[in-house]
């Protein structure tokens, strides 16, 4: 049990780093959104791990919140992706750099 808990946080950190790398490296908007999803779940995993460590339900409650927020974010994000596709005829984030500053 304690070993699994000890493993939870490093896994969450690695997941978060992978997600961040995806956001920074990939240019396709859809993949960027997926990477953000990975980062959110890394955060959720950290919550759950911490909740298990203290024997409290708060971590799982926070995870549910994260899921809800992630669902909302995906719906808004996908709508934006469609608009970007319509307006710029591309999914490359670097092409959509008209707003500087």
């Amino acid at each position: 049990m304690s070993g699994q808990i000890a493993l939870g946080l490093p896994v969450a950190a690695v997941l978060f780093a992978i997600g961040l790398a995806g956001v920074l490296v990939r240019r396709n908007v859809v993949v960027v959104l997926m990477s953000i999803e990975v980062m959110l779940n890394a955060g959720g995993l950290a919550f759950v791990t911490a909740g298990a460590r203290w024997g409290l339900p708060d971590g799982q409650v926070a995870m549910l919140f994260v899921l809800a927020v992630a669902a909302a974010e995906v719906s808004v994000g996908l709508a934006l992706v469609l608009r970007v596709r319509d307006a710029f005829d591309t999914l490359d984030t670097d092409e959509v750099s008209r707003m500087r500053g």
Partner: protein
Amino acid sequence: MLPLTWAIPALPLAGFAVLGLAGRRLTPRAVAWVGAGSVAAAFALAAAVAAAFLAAPPAGGAFSQTLWTWWTVGGLAAHVSLRLDPLSLVFVLVVTFVGSLVLLYSTEYMEGDPDYSRFFAWMDLFAGSMLVLVLAADFLLLYLGWEAVGLCSYLLIGFWYRDCANGRAAMKAFVVTRVGDVALLVGILLLFTQLGTLGIQSAMSRAVDAWPTGAAVASVAAALVLGGAVGKSAQLPLQVWLPDAMAGPTPVSALIHAATMVTAGVYLIARTGALFAIAPGVRLAVAVIGALTLLIAGFSALAQSDIKKVAAYSTVSQLGYMFVALGVGAASAAVFHMFTHAFFKALIFLGAGAVIKAMDEDRDMFHMGGLKDRMPLTFWTFTIGCASLAALPLVTAGFYSKDLILFESFASPYGDVWLWLAGLVGSVLTALYASRMVLLTFFGPLKREPSGLPGPRMAVPMVTLAVLAVVAGFVQVPGYLGGKPLFTGLVGAGLPARSSPLVGAALASAIAGVLVLAGIASAYWLYEPGRPALDRLVATPWGAALHRAFLAGFGFDAAYEAVFVRPYRRLAELDRGDFVDPAYRAAGRLAAWCGGALDGLETGRVRNYAFGIGIGVVVVLAVVMLR
């Protein structure tokens, strides 16, 4: 009636407020009614207050009124309080009376000017400020009025601002008087720090108690106050601004630069007389400054061709007489001369204004001449004014006041025969230049047809003042003529009474009278048009040099130009790049450079921004965890 004293300055200030806010929307007729009417109402009120004051003098010979406390900081309390005593009463009456006459004259003189309402607004502001100055019971309030009249003087000298020369004259007047104003402010603060009060009366009584006669601090304070008076009253060495101040409209010169504002210095020294009494050295300096000024200005007046400049130099000279009187401790004589001078000098300016208007703003007396039959009313009133200025014996007001000053200049315990001699020379000069004005303007062949005669609104003030230029002296008849010292009896109440030797006084007056008549006679010999005597005199090298010196006012302007103005200009030019600027410019460049350096970060790419956020989070976490 006395509790209404506050309304005397408030009425012109209300007129100013109305004209300043709504002047452009009023018809010229309404502007004239508000502008002149507010000052006339102030005069009516002042007359009623004066009647009440004289009928039942308040306890202590003065009526005080504290309106409100301006502000209090620590031990420093500035009160807006008024004090009406015989000295301020005389000034209030003169300011409101001459002010309403001059404003009545202006309603016609300024007719058709596009800035009619602006003129009356500022004249009202001036009248109100001057009344605040003379009624103030508190040094700070006095200083407020003092600066406000200086401001109005500046605004009205430069009234016709489209001509750059007028603007320069206004600036010169403002800057030169400012030298004196700073001295006065320092003097007031010195009195406050040493005596702990801003009230004029309390400061005077504490000074007399705290400081022995001749104490250094008393002398310094008196000298600083004198500095303020010298600036405002155009005395040596700050007299240079007044002749240039003639650039303003003529009614302005009559009211501000002859009858009232320039006498503020006389008022100030009379008001702080107790301070000068314990500073004998400074009191002597007052008399010496006055004597030198009256001579220098008298000589300068002889050579001017601009009719208003003659009158301006003569104002400086007459103020010199008042300073002599103040310097020998005869404040009431000085105030009496201020009283008569206000009438005859305002009259001379109003007459000159009528002539100048008829000459279409040409002020050169050598372009005039022969106007005697064309402008008889102006001629007679102007001549009466000049006779009073020249102190024509027995029949004019100027004689009685100047005679009193001349008598005091040697008979007073602080008098000196040299002051008397300077005064006598000055009275010959006065007779000369006063007669010269009349002869050049009104006698000889007609050189130019006048383009219009003064209408009733200009004529009434001139006639009124002409009457007063004669009869105003009869309130103070010297002892050898029966003795009726009403004026000094009123103003000098509280001053130690002296019995004057009748025979000596009569002899002195006789000498002065004969000299005046001789001056007028020699003016006729010198200046009667067509006589060659003067031309021969000016043709000699010495005569030419003197003429140049007189015309230039003894070169004070040139000296100040060389010593102050030009070095200052050169310094400003040297510093055209301004040695402070590079520091500020460097700061500006640094900011621009930083902006340029950071500009590369603004790519518009979401990935780059996310990277920045990630780096930031890492740094913050590292700082928090490794601390």
